[in-house]
């Protein structure tokens, strides 16, 4: 057995960097997700701020070496605030030609590419549709290419270990790559070695082999003259506390767990699998120990309607989906708003319309969330803006649904749902109180449509409660008794009171705030998952001296924060930036008569890039 300790006898002078973007790419079977997440976890524990984004092929088992079988994982780490997984990369680690071919566009000129040259065989080059070998034809002249025989070095490192099949040997070459990157960025492999110990507790030979390969990569980099310098990224200034790395979908699921515990209700999820929302279902099915009832239904309609049933029966009921699924849920959502039961619908937006771009991100379901139902049927619409704050907004969605007796649609998107970042862990005790409108005893003159005078929420009398038997339904109801009513004035009254109930939510949500400037030449406006990109672009402009550009981000879409018009009116120009063709800007136009409401839109299934935003905003103030 070799000792696992790394000795830093040959410490180089490290070049200090603020932030770096690294992308690991390879075949689906190359273990790039694990490699990337190990690197980001290690960096986070070291104290860096981090943001990550995975990129899986949409085919389940794409042919080895093919262009569409490339799997990637991007990590952005910094000693400064990191708010996106980054655009262009400083280091690309390509395990095969296909990975290089599909990702070379993202590497900043002059920056580094590490390749496993053992995989640059004639066959693999053909599969990647390379006519000539890019490592030899001069096409990579603008980059610093480091060629490493990773496959053979991995094999050599493992030659003494018995019982190791060839497949396991080849599979561990990602750890060789990780070892190199650890050395380059002055990171200790210790965390990953601990990880092996836990993961392979029952397979000690795999602990040994993976550790060996990881160390071999590390030492190789240390002694290799091809790597001219190493970098170091100091810890970021982050609020003290206990952290973990969390993805948006996990944070969403956990927000509901917390809300259920806080409210003392049982959590019911009715859901049908759909990318990119399925991981919320995957997460919640694990938590039977908290009494979570996760029901995989026969379709999205049964997903939402089973949740409506559970809500009627007194559970905290939610349903999770993506755009096409929200379309199917429309009629049932109308029922939920009509019967005024608490319900949360999570829509993890993806590229639309129709099947669209299932694995890509977009913000084009906003109008569907706002209006995708028959009749006058307003509901609360919220949008989370970062992977970790999905926790807060899931919690808040549950709280508002329960306190105001209404469906709430929570919008997230593929970008923040799959992306991850540090989350300062919240204890349930720190979370705000959640009340509900349950009635448990029969009282004189009780009616199912008696309302709370302040919120206008109706009361929640659940089956099993003695003396409160009553009927609800999709037909219009008398304002007090809840009996079916076709009286014209009553219908108008009920329509208005349902709308006002939602409007009054304004009294219970925070006002809109601005960052960087609260008046001036340009207000950049965003909503939902674009926070990271927009915030960092405006921040950069500010540091360049553009101090009359402010930034306002909306998490509350319906109703809008009370002070919205005040905030907007303090700027000469407003540009509303969205990953759609202008849905939120039109909601603002509908509400406010503000001159100079401009829009900046992108519908490519991709997040905003930093450069495009900087260029656009500069243009608007010059």
């Amino acid at each position, binding site marked *: 057995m070799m000792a696992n300790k790394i000795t830093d006898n040959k410490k180089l002078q490290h070049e200090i960097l603020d932030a770096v973007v690294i992308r690991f790419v390879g075949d689906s079977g190359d273990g790039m997700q694990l490699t990337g997440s190990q690197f980001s976890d290690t960096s986070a524990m070291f104290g860096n701020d981090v943001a990550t984004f995975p990129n899986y092929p949409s085919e389940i088992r794409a042919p080895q070496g093919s262009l569409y079988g490339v799997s990637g994982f991007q990590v952005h780490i910094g000693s400064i605030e990191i708010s996106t997984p980054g655009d262009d990369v400083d280091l690309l680690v390509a395990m095969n030609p296909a990975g290089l071919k599909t990702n070379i566009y993202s590497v900043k000129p002059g920056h580094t590419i590490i390749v496993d040259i053992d995989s640059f065989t004639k066959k693999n080059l053909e599969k990647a549709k390379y006519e000539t070998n890019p490592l030899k034809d001069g096409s990579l002249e603008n980059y610093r290419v480091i060629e490493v025989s990773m496959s053979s070095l991995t094999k050599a490192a493992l030659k003494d270990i018995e019982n190791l099949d060839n497949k396991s040997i080849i599979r561990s070459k990602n750890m060789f790559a990780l070892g190199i990157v650890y050395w380059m960025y002055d990171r200790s492999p210790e965390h990953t070695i601990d990880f092996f110990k836990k993961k392979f507790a029952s397979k000690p030979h795999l602990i040994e082999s993976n550790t060996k390969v990881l160390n071999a990569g590390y030492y190789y980099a240390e002694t290799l003259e091809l790597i001219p310098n190493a970098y170091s990224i100091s810890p970021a200034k982050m609020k*003290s*506390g206990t952290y973990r790395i969390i993805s948006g979908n996990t944070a969403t699921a956990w927000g509901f767990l917390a809300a259920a515990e806080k409210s003392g209700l049982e959590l019911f999820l009715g859901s049908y699998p759909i990318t990119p929302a399925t991981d919320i279902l995957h997460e919640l099915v694990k*938590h039977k*120990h908290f009494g979570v009832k996760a029901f995989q*239904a026969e379709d999205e309609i049964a997903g939402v309607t089973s949740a409506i*049933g559970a809500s009627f029966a007194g559970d905290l009921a939610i349903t999770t989906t993506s755009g096409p699924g929200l379309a199917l849920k429309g009629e049932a959502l*109308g029922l939920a708003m009509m019967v005024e039961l608490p319900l949360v619908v999570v829509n993890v937006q993806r590229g639309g319309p129709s099947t669209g771009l299932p694995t890509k991100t977009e913000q084009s379901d906003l109008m569907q969330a706002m209006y995708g139902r028959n009749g006058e049927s307003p509901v609360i619409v919220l949008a989370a803006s970062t992977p970790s704050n999905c926790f807060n907004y899931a919690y808040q969605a549950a709280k508002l649904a329960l306190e105001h007796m209404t469906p709430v649609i929570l919008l997230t998107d593929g970008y923040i749902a799959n992306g991850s970042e540090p989350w300062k862990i919240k204890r349930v005790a720190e979370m705000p109180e959640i009340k509900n409108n349950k009635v448990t005893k029969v009282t004189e003159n009780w009616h199912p449509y008696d309302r709370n005078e302040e919120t206008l929420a109706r009361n929640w009398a659940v089956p099993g409660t003695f003396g409160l038997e*009553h009927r609800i339904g999709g037909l219009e109801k008398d304002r007090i008794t809840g*009996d079916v009513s076709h009286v014209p004035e009553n219908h108008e009254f009920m329509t208005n009171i349902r709308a006002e109930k939602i409007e009054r939510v304004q009294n219970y949500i925070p006002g809109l705030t601005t960052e960087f400037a609260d008046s001036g030449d340009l207000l950049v406006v965003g909503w939902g998952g674009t926070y990271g990109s927009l915030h960092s672009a405006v921040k950069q402009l500010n540091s360049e001296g553009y101090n009359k550009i402010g930034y306002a981000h909306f998490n509350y879409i319906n109703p809008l924060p009370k002070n919205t018009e005040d905030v907007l009116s303090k700027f000469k120009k407003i540009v509303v930036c969205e990953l759609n063709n202008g849905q939120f800007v039109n909601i603002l136009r509908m509400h406010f008569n503000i001159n100079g409401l401009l829009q900046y839109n992108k519908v490519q299934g991709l997040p905003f890039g930093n450069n495009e935003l900087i260029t656009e905003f500069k243009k608007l103030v010059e």
Partner: protein
Amino acid sequence: METTVVKKYTFKDFASNQEVRWCPGCDDYVILRSMQKALPEMGVKKEDVVFISGIGCSSRFPYYMDTYGMHSIHGRAPAIASGVKLANPDLSVWVITGDGDSMAIGGNHFIHVLRRNINLNIILFNNEIYGLTKGQFSPTSLVGQKTKSSPYGNTQPPFQPGELAIGARARFFARIGGNTPKEMTQMFIDAETFNGTSLIEVLQNCVIFNDGCFSQYTDKNIREDKQLFVEHGKPMIFGKNRDKGLVLNGLKIEVVTIGENGIMEADILLHNAKEEDPTLHQMLVRLEYPLVTGIIRRFDDVTLEEREDALTKEVKSNSKFTKTDDLFFSGEIYEVK
């Protein structure tokens, strides 16, 4: 303190204050009255009873019951009811649905609720027509049937509800004529007693759009000759003179006359509703002469709630998590000073 003794109710306790609005003469009245009479016999507390319906004439039913209820949207009642039952397994949950509601727009939920075997009861009001929308053909309308949407005769072959249901693995299937309230009342009680999804198809006459659709089987003066009302463990004998019966001839069911060709009562098939193999039940469901009514299939099986409950208990006992904090602070966490 809560009382566990169930109050003695009468049918009036289950009638709501709403005026019943079905057409005079509609069989829906019979079903309503039978239900109101059956509930006091079931030993359930009124506050534990929930009726969930879809949309249709039949689906107005919950408004007339003084229990908890939801008149929901077209076809979705089985899914809503599943949510109610999974949220609170102590409730007595009833689905009220029509032939269009359950087998056209709601076909998907209908087959899946049966497959899962959640302990709830479904009353299918089969009038072989869309009543509420004023007379279009439904998935149970016959080929050739003239309706508002098939003026020259329906060209779409129908479902046989029992066949579809048993194909979808229904554990309990019963059929009853809409004009036999006594038997219907008992059948509702039996459905409630059954642990699993029970489906009762009521042959419901719609006096307005499909009058007489079942009269060849249900008319008082002929029904004993045309209907075989099966009972578990009893020979399948029918007829005014109790002289007709069913035997198996190869893979077919045959009607024979007792006393003819040497056939004796002992030769007649005994009805075994509790048989797991649904082959014979399917044959009974498909039979046109006699039309088989009664509880055709009643096979005891584990319910979804029981499976879920057992699994939850097991997971809970093996889990190190009791509070969400335990989960949030587990695994890969780190401190920032």
